[in-house]
């Protein structure tokens, strides 16, 4: 039977969610640059950025697959824990402050490139947007997939999120910027913190009560703490709790 820590569904959901959080910003940048500066150079920059990301995933995947599982879970678990905590804290603060609001439109200065050849401004903006936002996706997807021994599922989850957000961005104007990214960030931050805690301690040789079932306990603990902290933050910001 597949353990909870390497369950295909949980790996897919977590990597899909983590990728979606960054993909929202990535697609918003690309759409903003393309609309202002023109599509040819923007798409060229996007394609070059995606190639760099694909190469990073292959290299990281090969490197991590060669590391013994306990060492990998300690290192990756600690990494996912401290990174997950950043999203967890940001998610709590943003959900408390902005509720379910999306990220809003990106505004870029300038006008469409009319001359011959590549518009390097559009190329660079799109390339940097894709690589900077995507590098975090690549690290999370590969490290999560390698620790769960489900690298293929993790890559499929990440790629599916990227494709879904890109399609939504192209087909339905305004939809991507209205996705409640803060809530998504809080949910994924909670999942990354949960798995990070579980794997880091497993890597240290700690025995969890209930084995893999401890993941559900950790998830419940961090979700309840997040709900309580959102309520406290809202009271601090606005002087009332949700529904109050």
């Amino acid at each position, binding site marked *: 039977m597949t353990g909870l820590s390497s369950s295909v569904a949980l790996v897919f959901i977590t990597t899909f969610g983590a990728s979606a959080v960054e993909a929202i910003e990535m697609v918003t940048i690309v759409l903003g640059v393309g609309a202002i500066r023109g599509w040819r150079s923007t798409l060229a920059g996007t394609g070059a950025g995606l190639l760099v990301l694909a190469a990073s995933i292959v290299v990281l995947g090969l490197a991590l697959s060669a590391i013994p599982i306990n060492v990998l879970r300690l290192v990756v678990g600690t990494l996912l824990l401290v990174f997950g905590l950043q999203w967890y*804290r940001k998610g709590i603060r943003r959900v408390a402050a902005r509720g379910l609001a999306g990220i809003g439109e990106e505004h870029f200065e300038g006008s469409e490139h009319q001359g011959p050849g590549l518009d390097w401004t559009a190329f660079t903006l799109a390339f940097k947007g894709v690589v900077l936002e995507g590098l975090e996706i690549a690290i999370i997807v590969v490290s999560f997939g390698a620790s769960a021994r489900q690298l293929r599922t993790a890559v499929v989850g990440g790629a599916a999120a990227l494709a879904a957000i890109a399609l939504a961005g192209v087909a339905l104007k305004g939809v991507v910027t209205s996705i409640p990214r803060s809530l998504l960030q809080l949910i994924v931050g909670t999942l990354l913190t949960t798995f990070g805690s579980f794997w880091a301690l497993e890597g240290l040789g*700690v025995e969890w009560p209930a084995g893999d079932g401890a993941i559900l306990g950790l998830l419940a*603990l*961090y979700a309840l703490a997040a709900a309580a902290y959102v309520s406290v933050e809202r009271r601090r910001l606005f002087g009332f709790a949700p529904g109050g």
Partner: protein
Amino acid sequence: MRRVAGWLAAFARFWYGFIVGDDWTVAATVTVALVVTLALRVAGWPAWWLTPLVVVAVVGVSLRRAGVRR
């Protein structure tokens, strides 16, 4: 040479932001919690409970500090 140094600095900045972020005390506290957890395990005591409790507590402290700074 200056270009390479710039790339290396950007690479270091990326990893600092990825691991430490905007509140270094969170990453430091989690690291200390993991070291103490290892010490408890080596001593033969139950160790699984410490890190989750520290995580919940340090997030509360970090949020409170951020709220005071605002």
